[in-house]
């Protein structure tokens, strides 16, 4: 899932995300600061509860009414509200929680773990023996905002729309529906392949059945995307118009949307609480304000004035962290987002593992975070491998080089000497438009140079990904060090390792190419479901230990600020966003 926020482009830019549970623990954040230390809940990956039924449990002390304003700094928000087209942390976290239902959903469980629970389906779906066919039974009491019931046919239609990668280029369907559904790769979708029959998705009574091209045990997770939800039949959901005012079926409906500026949601009185196991409808009105200035948002949130009391901010400036931490206490919430930032040495150019390890020791982690406006140990924590902490199967205490790799230029020099590559030339790019990226690059250059590398850093005016992902780019051909930031779409290693490290992985900016590893990834996908998590974890550790093809530089966390009248301030670990489903305004 992508993050639009330009700041995220800094040290290698977070773009693809959806989240899952995750968590480091408070150990990293101990410090001498005057405020309370923030703790993350330790989280287990992949909890499910297929029996949970609506209505959602009442929250203690919750009251109805009030308007909540959410300030989103530096992110213009979604381009389109069409559920099929949404694949950004920000847009999905809002729509999935408040306006658009899908087959399954996440609920914030005890200790903040996300639990996969049913949504429009009565359970988490019934797969056949080898996960090549899934059947979801749609509940009969879910309704649209106009009061009409949500039918199985509409769900099937909504899912079929997700195959139209041409019409919904930004949607996740291009990745998953087309990749896994039977014949998905050849079917261009209902709008582009007008009139062509597609029979992998069928409905019968209340049942929706999807046939798969290959085993897809994670279909229940994929069902938690709003793209796997219903759409009104025929013209009513015609893009692009539907994207400006889609029909809601969650507890809130869209009152007004001004792209890049504002989204206003009001109560949907047709939503039936009994039909929904995880959503609440306490708040009367939501106002999302996009593309705000961080400094201004911080000013509002820390002022404590009446505007700020019922407000939420999705981020805070690093310069205000200390103040916020000491003044706000529980109202400053730290949420892990299942993302890893990496440096990717070109596997075909930097062939010696010792040089790659030397790079890892030459990278000044703390200084890069500081210069990049992060709070070390809070919004960025040291990483040990590719799979984020808390993901099912992850070997938590694993260290590729015995202990946590930290900045150690002496060690890097030794490794370089061992490889016989003193003065190794590194060529990389940085995003010059952002002053933070410039500051970060200066730190990286200094770190590498103190460790005996030579560095050529090329300033670029476009997103570094434009260059890294374009094999024909003239600059890209000269690079031997790139980067990528990656977030999981659900808590399984299959959404982390293959995209980054299989030889045909889309975001394999390292160009890592080992047949044995490719084979192993395929083998794991064919394993029984219960064994997969551990196998992915073991592979994650094995790759790092034997090949060290990627230098994981950080796992990332987000900070949310809540006004003093917002009840139940908490984060949604599944999406790395505020937990919109469970807020209320204290009266």
């Amino acid at each position: 899932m992508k993050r639009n926020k330009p700041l995220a482009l800094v040290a290698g830019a977070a773009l693809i995300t959806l989240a899952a549970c995750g968590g480091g623990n408070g150990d990293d954040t101990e410090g001498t600061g005057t405020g309370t230390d923030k703790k993350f809940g330790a989280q287990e990956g992949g909890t499910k509860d297929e029996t949970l039924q609506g209505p959602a449990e009442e929250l203690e002390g919750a009251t109805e009414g009030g308007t909540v304003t959410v300030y989103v700094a530096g992110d213009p928000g979604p381009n389109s509200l069409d559920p099929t087209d949404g694949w950004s942390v920000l847009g999905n976290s809002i729509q999935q929680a408040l306006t658009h239902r899908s087959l399954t959903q996440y609920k914030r469980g005890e200790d903040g773990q996300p639990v996969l629970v049913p949504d429009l389906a009565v359970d988490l779906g019934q797969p056949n023996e080898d996960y090549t066919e899934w059947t979801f039974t749609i509940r009969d009491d879910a309704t649209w905002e106009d009061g009409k019931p949500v039918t199985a046919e509409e769900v099937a239609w909504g899912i079929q729309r997700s195959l139209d990668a041409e019409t919904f280029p930004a949607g996740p369907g291009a990745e998953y529906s087309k990749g896994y559904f039977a014949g998905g790769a050849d079917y261009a979708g209902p709008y582009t392949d007008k009139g062509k029959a597609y029979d992998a998705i069928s409905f019968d009574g209340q049942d929706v059945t999807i046939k798969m091209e290959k085993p897809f045990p994670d279909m229940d997770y994929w069902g938690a995307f709003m793209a796997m939800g219903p759409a009104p039949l025929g013209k009513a959901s015609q893009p692009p118009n539907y994207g400006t005012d889609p029909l809601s079926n969650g507890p809130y409906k869209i009152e007004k949307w001004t792209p890049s500026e504002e989204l206003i949601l009001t109560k949907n009185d047709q939503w039936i609480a009994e039909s929904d196991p995880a959503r609440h409808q306490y708040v009367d009105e939501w106002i999302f304000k996009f593309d705000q200035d961080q400094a201004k948002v911080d000013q509002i949130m820390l002022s404590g004035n009446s505007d700020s009391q019922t407000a939420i901010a999705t981020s805070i400036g690093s310069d205000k962290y200390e103040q916020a931490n000491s003044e706000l206490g529980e109202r400053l919430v730290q949420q892990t987002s299942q993302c890893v930032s990496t440096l990717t040495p070109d596997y075909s150019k930097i062939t010696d593992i010792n040089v790659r390890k030397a790079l890892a020791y030459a990278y000044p982690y703390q200084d890069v975070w500081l210069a990049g406006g992060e709070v070390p140990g809070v919004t960025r924590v040291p990483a040990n491998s590719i799979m984020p902490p808390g993901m099912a199967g992850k070997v938590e205490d694993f260290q590729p080089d015995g202990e946590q790799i930290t900045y150690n230029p002496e060690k890097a020099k030794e490794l370089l000497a061992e490889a016989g590559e003193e003065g190794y030339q590194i060529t990389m790019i940085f995003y010059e438009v952002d002053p933070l990226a410039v500051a970060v690059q200066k730190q990286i250059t200094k770190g590498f140079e103190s460790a005996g590398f030579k560095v050529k850093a090329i300033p670029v005016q476009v997103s570094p990904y434009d260059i890294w992902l374009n094999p024909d780019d003239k600059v890209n051909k000269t690079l031997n060090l790139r980067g990528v930031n990656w977030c999981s779409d659900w808590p399984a290693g299959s959404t982390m390792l293959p995209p980054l490290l299989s030889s045909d992985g889309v975001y394999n900016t390292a160009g890592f190419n080992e047949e044995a590893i490719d084979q192993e990834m395929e083998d794991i996908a064919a394993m029984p479901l219960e064994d997969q998590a551990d196998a992915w974890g073991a592979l994650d550790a094995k790759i790092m230990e034997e090949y060290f093809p990627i230098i994981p530089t950080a796992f990332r966390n987000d900070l949310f600020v809540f006004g003093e009248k917002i009840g139940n301030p908490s984060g949604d670990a599944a999406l790395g966003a505020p937990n919109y489903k469970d807020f209320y305004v204290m009266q």
Partner: protein
Amino acid sequence: MSQPTAPEALGSLTDETPIDPNSKKAKAITGRSPMQIALGRLLRDKIAVICAIVILFFIIVAVFAPLINKMLGVNTDTVFPSQYLDMLGGGMPLEGPPNNGFDPDHPFGIAPQTADDNLAYWVEGCRTSLTIAALATLFASVLGIVIGLLAGFLGGMVDKVLSFFIDLFLTVPFLLAALTLAPILNERFNTADSYVTIQKFSLIGVLAVFGWMGMARLIRGEVLSLREREFVQAARVLGMPTSRVLIKELMPNLAAPIIISVSLMLPAFVAAEAGLAFLGIGVTSGASWGQTIAKAVKYFEQYSLYLWEPLIGVVLLVLSLNLLGDAIRDALDPKTRR
């Protein structure tokens, strides 16, 4: 077409000079030997002398920047911020301002977030500022003089076309044009080794291309009146080639308007350079006062010194240049009294 004087025009980049070159006053100056008189008047003006000293100080700082930094024991090298900043206590410096007293190693303190030495960056920023302003003034002046001379002297169609272009450039909003052009120019050259220098020159280019019109108009007006004068007529009748008439006969009489124009351009370019950097374009690699100001705004409450340092640099330099320019204009015009 007249020009805006509104503050948004970035100082007086496109300002008309208060003196009308066609007036009797201007002619009166050229009639005598103006430069010595003007200089004498200038030296008696206390404010002008003080401003000149201040400007001289900035020029010395700019010219000897590396040497000065060496003498003061500071440098613009990247350092690791984790060693100098209170990472968990809000990222403010561990030593020196704002929370502790004077730090002799870093007399101006160090920057939050990157721990760069403020003094070294200030000195280098001064250099950037003056280099860019001086070179932009040079190029804009040459461009303005050439176009003004051609338009005024040749007249007819050439004058019409050139005047149209002067109007055209005055119509393009300078800030927007600079904002749009600078990134495009930067991208063209981003792989070059001398990127930092090229970036500065592309900024100088943008400033010069949108800064020559005032000079051109002034010169054109002056030439229009000069070319009807007897000595020019005589030279032409004698068959002197046009280029010679322009350079030998006209140029010496244009010294006053050129000096006036330059005195307006310099402070405007200093202000423009810092203003563009403040908006996030212009010099992005390397030191610039405007860039530091933009970074320092959000720390104003905790660390106001960080903002004041570059801000005072810009204000003092622009102020002195403006006041000195004003004094020069007064000195060249015997009629004004302040």
